[in-house]
């Protein structure tokens, strides 16, 4: 009897241990995530309901509640704050779609073109990855140097060498600044797409190609009917990651334009930064961040649902 009980107890503890092990393994990750992400995120959400200006920043727990005012301001698109936020949201959408689209296109294109071996392929691969390996800060500052109106390479090329413009255009102010931003972001982003797609290509079973070759399919057919469908799972993840990174990009515009970007290139993360740190309204900045978070969550959820369903439908 006692033996049986001991056996049961042992079984139970074994079970508890087995069930507890994954939690034990997760523990360090959870602790750090809590400390650096989750708790500050919750603090941020609390801040978004407070009237947290220079008068209360010293002791912000005593800051008066703002109720939903911060959200109301941010979402009132007739007011200055709301319309600026909406504007920068639209700019960010345009920027993200273009940057992700072009980067994906370039990355996938280059990876496909380099799928078959040729002389110098390895070297060229390595070379293409250099922009991604550079610290973000260095890449952006180099582009800032190139976009200078009077001393930059871009105008030297476009105006003096190619004679495309009569008078030198501006790239860091005015409407062109948007394109300057996109080019800089693409330069740094596309090698990542290239890297991931290159990796994805290695996973496509070779016999698929062999079969296609026997059927007499040409290069373009092969790409269209084998490679691209096979890459779909890779692309699903890649596009999502690129989207999230670019939508939240702060470094590139901040280095290119300084703390106050031209309105045409005012990304939402910079808008939030300005609201919080330049205008000293951390409550309002937090509310904007929460809205941004909600938007990204919804987009991600829809994206995953749709792509997963299509993936399943295809299989």
């Amino acid at each position: 009897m006692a033996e049986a009980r001991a056996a049961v107890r042992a079984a139970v503890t074994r079970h508890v241990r087995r069930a507890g092990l994954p939690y034990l393994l997760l523990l360090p990750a959870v602790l750090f995530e809590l400390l650096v992400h989750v708790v500050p995120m919750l603090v941020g959400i609390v801040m978004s309901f407070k009237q947290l200006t220079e008068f209360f920043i010293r002791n912000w727990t005593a800051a008066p509640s703002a109720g939903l005012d911060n959200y109301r301001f941010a979402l009132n698109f007739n007011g200055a704050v709301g319309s600026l936020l909406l504007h920068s949201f639209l700019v960010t959408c345009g920027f993200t779609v273009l940057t992700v689209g072009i980067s994906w296109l370039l990355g996938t294109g280059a990876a496909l073109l380099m799928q078959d071996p040729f002389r110098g392929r390895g070297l060229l691969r390595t070379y293409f990855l250099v922009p991604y390996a550079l610290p973000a800060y260095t890449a952006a500052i180099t582009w800032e140097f190139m976009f200078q109106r009077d001393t930059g390479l871009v105008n030297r090329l476009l105006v003096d060498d190619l004679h495309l413009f009569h008078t030198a255009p501006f790239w860091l102010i005015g409407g062109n600044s948007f394109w300057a931003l996109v080019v800089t972001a693409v330069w740094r982003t596309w090698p990542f797409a290239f890297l991931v797609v290159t990796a994805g290509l290695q996973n496509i079973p070779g016999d698929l190609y062999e079969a296609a070759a026997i059927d007499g399919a040409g290069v373009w057919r092969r790409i269209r009917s084998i490679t691209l469908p096979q890459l779909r799972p890779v692309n699903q993840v890649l596009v999502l990651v690129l989207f999230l990174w670019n939508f939240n990009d702060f470094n590139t515009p901040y280095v290119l334009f300084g703390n106050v970007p031209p309105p045409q290139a005012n990304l939402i993360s910079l808008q939030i930064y300005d609201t919080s740190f330049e205008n000293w309204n951390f409550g309002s900045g937090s509310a904007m961040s929460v809205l941004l978070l909600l938007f990204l969550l919804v987009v991600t959820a829809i994206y995953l649902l749709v792509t997963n369903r299509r993936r399943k439908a295809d299989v």
Partner: protein
Amino acid sequence: MRRSALLALAVCSTATALLATGCSSSGSNSGGGSGSSQQTLTYWASDQGSSIADDVQVLTPELNAFTKQTGIKVHLEVIGWNDLLNRIMAAVSSGQGPDVLNIGNTWSASLQATGAFLPFTSDVMQQIGGSSRFLPGALAATGAPGKPPVGVPIYSMAYALYYNKAMFQAAGITTPPTTWSEFVADGTKLTKSGQWGVSVEGAQTPENAHHAFTFAAQQGGSFFDSSGKPTFDTPQNIAGIKTYVDFMAADKIANPSDAEYSNGTEAVKDFATGKAAMMLWQDAGQDLTNYGMSPSQYGVVPVPFADTSATSGPTHVDSIVAGINLSVFGGTKNKDAALKFVKFMTSQPTQIALNKSYGSLPSVSDAYTDPAFQTPTVKVFQNVLASSAAPMPAVATESQFETVIGTALKNLFADAASGKPVTDQSIASQLDQAQQQLQAGG
């Protein structure tokens, strides 16, 4: 299984701990000045020299002298302008900061509103030698009127008109302009291929805000009413700003490229290298020398006035009171030592030495006895500061004000540079937007 799991976890956590302690110990120094046996003050200095290393070089001998005098050590950290306000914010919100720090004097009212800085009541003022030692103009920019200031001026500056003597001579201009119409007429004469009448820093927000303030004030305009409410788009403000932006937009005496200038050095460089004949600038002697322009090549006179403005009274403004203040952090545990340090930094010899190195003006009157501050150039600045400089609006939202107005002008300059007309309407709509932003922010 359990043993191995625990073992692995133990290995991991020890590794983490080891690495962590390894990292933190090599990091040393946590900054906060705890006063045990030997007192140490932490001092955040703003970047006044040509580089941070340069600042350290200038300040260190003075700090050593202070330590010798009082036995109090000073831990110096020079912080670039990019980071200074963010660091101050972090210090204010957490209560953990330096003992003594430099702030841009235009931030005074904003930082005063946080309540995180030691108010310089008359008692405190007495402790550092009394308020009468300071230039009254500079002392005005240490906080909102009627409240005890949150610091004392340490380096003072003002705007003046710099002009290139040789270029003036070549263009047949005998006396520097004193009104804006003369200024524009001269500028037109001075503008020819590869040379412009004036250089401006069109994308630099604080610089823009300072000029907007001065130009508007000359028209009798003001950005805030007496109760501190913003009044941005008044006809006077619009007229003032239009005069300034028109240098590029209508008068074409400023290079459109200037609309891109944003780091406070390009305009000076253009002036120094003969690409522009004039500039409106704070004490630039040091920078000009660095760029290879000797003091004999340029003249310095007060900033011109609007044709309408009177020769005295509230519209007789040709500069903001610019400069740096020295504040004591409210959370300091070393208040007495901190005040000793403030007293030392504003003492006559220290003021002479530091302002000489930085090319700024002493904020205490007794330092002007030094021959270095008896030159004609310094006299011009001293006069401006004494009689015609006005402090930026002393409202709690001053810092926001600089950002939104500076941005408005930056956008207007961008329009001007790309050939879009700058009209009263376009200025008004920029100002209107800026004001709404400020109000929503407050």
